[in-house]
């Protein structure tokens, strides 16, 4: 005969096991990106952790040729999901994912009617900081904006690490709603574990009016933007 106490212990044990398994379950934001016509779009999916537009950049992923992306995040909660594809206006989405769950989204991008107002990336470079004996490198990007309304979305994405970063402007900006200056933006990268690999890095810039550059990937040679037909 099975003792009631044993049944209780088993039940508690199974419940604890279930909780532990649940805690280990991945928290994932995944989805598809298409044009209005349903054409899959490749690009970048970058996350702000917390309330959207807080400029706390966190994880990210490449959106593949099938328009699919998948980002594993460290915790549940609100995120600002920003989707970029060359020739399209970037799409910001406030999302919320529960811990241990997968959030599936479908994002539709609209093309930019003109590229005349896009920020212009002049060049990108990777520079080891000699004084730090190879432990630090700078990623630098020279940008200008025809309307002078750059904002904080001057972004670098390391695909190998799955990390997105806002690059620091040429001078400190206290107000994120202010127009940011043209010039060289930079990011300090810890290279103590491994040297920087430019192939891992992708860049995109969006100004305050959502005009968005093409995604600049290796070999980081900017090309004239074209309007998506």
């Amino acid at each position: 005969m099975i003792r009631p106490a044993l049944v209780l212990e088993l039940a508690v044990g199974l419940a604890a096991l279930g909780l532990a398994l649940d805690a280990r379950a991945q928290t994932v934001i995944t989805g598809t990106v298409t044009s209005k016509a349903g054409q899959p779009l490749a690009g970048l999916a970058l996350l702000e952790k917390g309330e959207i537009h807080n400029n706390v950049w966190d994880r990210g992923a490449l959106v593949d040729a099938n328009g699919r992306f998948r980002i594993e995040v460290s915790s549940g909660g609100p995120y600002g999901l920003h989707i970029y594809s060359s020739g399209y206006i970037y799409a910001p989405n406030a999302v919320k994912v529960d811990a241990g769950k997968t959030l599936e989204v479908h994002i539709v991008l609209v093309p930019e009617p003109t590229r005349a107002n896009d920020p212009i990336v002049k060049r990108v470079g990777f520079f080891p900081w000699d004084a730090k004996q190879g432990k630090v490198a700078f990623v630098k990007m020279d940008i200008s904006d025809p309307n002078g309304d750059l904002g904080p979305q001057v972004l670098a994405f390391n695909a190998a690490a799955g990390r997105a970063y806002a690059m620091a402007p040429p001078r400190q900006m206290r107000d994120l709603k202010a127009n940011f200056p043209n010039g060289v933006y930079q990011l300090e990268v810890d290279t103590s574990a491994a040297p920087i690999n430019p192939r891992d890095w992708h860049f995109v810039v969006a100004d305050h009016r959502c005009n968005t550059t093409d995604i600049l990937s290796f070999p980081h040679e900017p090309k004239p933007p074209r309007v998506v037909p």
Partner: protein
Amino acid sequence: MPTRLQVLVRSDRALPAVSVWILIALLSVGGVGSIRALWAGNGPRQALVAEGERWWSTSPDPTNPVACATCHDDPAAARGWAASFPKLRPLPPPHSRVMTLLQANAEAVARHYGLEDPRPAATAITAYLTRLGADTIITPAVSAGQPVFPERMARLAASVTRGERVYARRCESCHRVPEVAVRVLAFPRLREGRPEPVESFLEDHRPLTPRLRWDGQEVADLMAALMARIAGRPLGDPAIAGRKEES
């Protein structure tokens, strides 16, 4: 005693109350057709709505033709916006705050259209979006198909509390809150032939000293408190139909 919205926003467990209010409201009105009819016609108010639709769909800057509708091109999604205000408008810190629909529209057209005085365009767009969502139910901070963010609900609840204090201090001696709350649905209205959003009415209301600012936090808080009183009603409430046009 907490208002309906405070009950709604202070506890996640109370969130299903939204659907209860929606059900009650749907049962209490005569159908969406009658609500849409309130906003139909060719009067000056309809002209304001049409102007709002133009601002919505066409940028004033031909060299930068991105308009509201370029990105927000799904009328089904935009229909729910008006009824979801006031709510937290997420902006780069520290600028996030609870805003009215007009304030949010003004912020958006100032940024995207580069307008020095965004209020006329924002007023027209507010009229257009209010018309678009006339048959939707007032559910501040909750939009159909969108996630509910507890932090945003908490910020709205705090705004409602502040707004109740503003009302008690500035308005209560002359106006009973149930009567005032429903009258905010009559805005934007036409006054002496000019469009007037409720925020401008509050700014110009003479007994209110010091003066409220149409784009200020106190106005948003006041509106949050008033809209909390009428959460669950349709945005185009037939009870105030006669007050929508200038007499």
